[in-house]
């Protein structure tokens, strides 16, 4: 079977989950909340809104497309047929990214092309990272990541360390914000910063490699 055909065969996951689960409702709710927040903000920041939609949307899509225990168990069934684990991984990542891309494009409808692109790249990065979390730890890890995004996702390391005498906890959070996918860094994507693009590329490669490694280990009947 061709690698590309194997990638494309993962597409039904997005269609079916959008139409038959609450994923579609959650994505619309996410859009509504971010739109409301952006409207009520004193200084409007369309870039922050788009990045928030991208990261939240990507995480939700991965949770619904790959994170459930049944989905991880069924991965073993899929690999009983002549499929490449890498193609399954890329296909599921593209499907999740596409789901997030829909809401990103809706959120960025009045924004510049740069902001829309930043949103799309952020969605791709978050999808790859979250896919690795989902296949290694299920929706428990994905949920933890969503909470992390809600609590610290919008902060920058400088802001975390800005207070005098920061403790070990603050340093740990700052390091996490430095290393993991974070919205402060991907703001630079809208302005063509190479550092942000390089970070996104490395995180996508890392996430896909980690997810592929887990997929290759999936045996039938084993989540």
């Amino acid at each position, binding site marked *: 079977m061709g690698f590309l*055909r194997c990638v494309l065969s993962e597409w*039904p996951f997005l269609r079916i989950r959008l139409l*038959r*689960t609450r994923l579609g409702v959650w994505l619309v709710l996410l859009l509504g909340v971010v739109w409301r927040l952006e409207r009520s903000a004193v200084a409007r920041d369309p870039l922050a809104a788009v990045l928030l939609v991208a990261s939240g949307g990507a995480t939700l899509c991965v949770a619904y497309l790959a994170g459930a225990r*049944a*989905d991880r168990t069924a991965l073993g069934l*899929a690999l*009983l*047929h*002549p499929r490449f684990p890498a193609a399954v991984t890329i296909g599921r990542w593209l499907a999740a990214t596409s789901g997030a891309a829909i809401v990103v494009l809706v959120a960025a409808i009045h924004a510049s092309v740069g902001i829309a692109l930043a949103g799309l790249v952020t969605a791709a990065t978050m999808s790859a990272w979250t896919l690795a979390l989902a296949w290694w730890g299920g929706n428990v890890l994905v949920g933890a990541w969503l909470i992390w995004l809600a609590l610290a996702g919008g902060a920058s390391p400088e802001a975390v360390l800005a207070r005098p005498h920061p403790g070990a906890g603050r340093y740990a959070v700052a390091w996490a914000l430095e290393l993991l996918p974070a919205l402060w860094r991907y703001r630079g994507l809208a302005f063509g910063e190479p550092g942000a693009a390089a970070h996104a590329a490395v995180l996508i490669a890392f996430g896909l490699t980690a997810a592929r490694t887990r997929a290759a280990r999936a045996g039938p009947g084993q989540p």
Partner: protein
Amino acid sequence: MTGVVQVRGVRRVFRRGWGRPPVVAIAEATFAIGAGEVVCLVGAAASGKTTLLRLLAGVLAPTAGVIRIAGVSAAADVRSSVGFAPRDPAFPPGFTVREVLAYCASAHARGRERDAQVTDALDAAGLSERAGRRAASLPLADGRRLLLAQSLLGGRRVVLLDEPFAGLDAVTRRDLSDRLQRLVVTGGSVLLSSADPVGLERLADRVLVLRAGRLVVDAPATELLGGRILEVVLDVPPREAPPGFRVTATGLEADLGWRSAESALAVCRAHKLHVRASRVRLKTLDEATHDADVAAR
């Protein structure tokens, strides 16, 4: 050694960390399966049946030995020629039966050919009327049918079924047996595992008995099932069984071997046992595998 499936000197050891000793799941297995043959792999729980099936399906690699499927080493990708149905049904949530099969079939074909494969698999497994139902919420019997259907996709001629009848009612067991027999009539080969061989007599061409990871019996079913047993119902249970007899709940029973039933009943009379009724029956596969297992100890 000839056959569609050839297994020679296969051994599989699972290494465990933290200084714990390795687990020998398959100590030694050598056998072959021919075209159009149904082979039942029988053994107690944790005897290595699932591991052996996973080795044949290419999901696991053997620690030692050679597995060849249709002349191709299982170390290469044999998923185009070997279908494997795991024991526990697990399907992607939200997918219908047809969508699960279409998803699996997309690895083998595309377009109309894929749709034709899906339709054939639905027919072969008896799922045509339930094609629109959600796969994740199917009852166990239909889940097993769907597992069988996906293992047939792509025109695969070797089918491995892990405990396909476990937990199923007699009607479904019979129906699935008939469908498997139809498959082997067209030249397919089936290897199915079962911890409970009851009812497999009408299906099995050959029986493999696995005991603690070692293949202790590889015999045609006719050879194992050829034995006759005399069942004797007594008015009063005996204190001890006469030579060659075993005490049962209703009386006695004995392997007849080459003896006649009359000569065995004469032994009962000689021991002054009041025989109320008697009958001669064939050994069940359950008894035959148990005897073989005991003999191998």
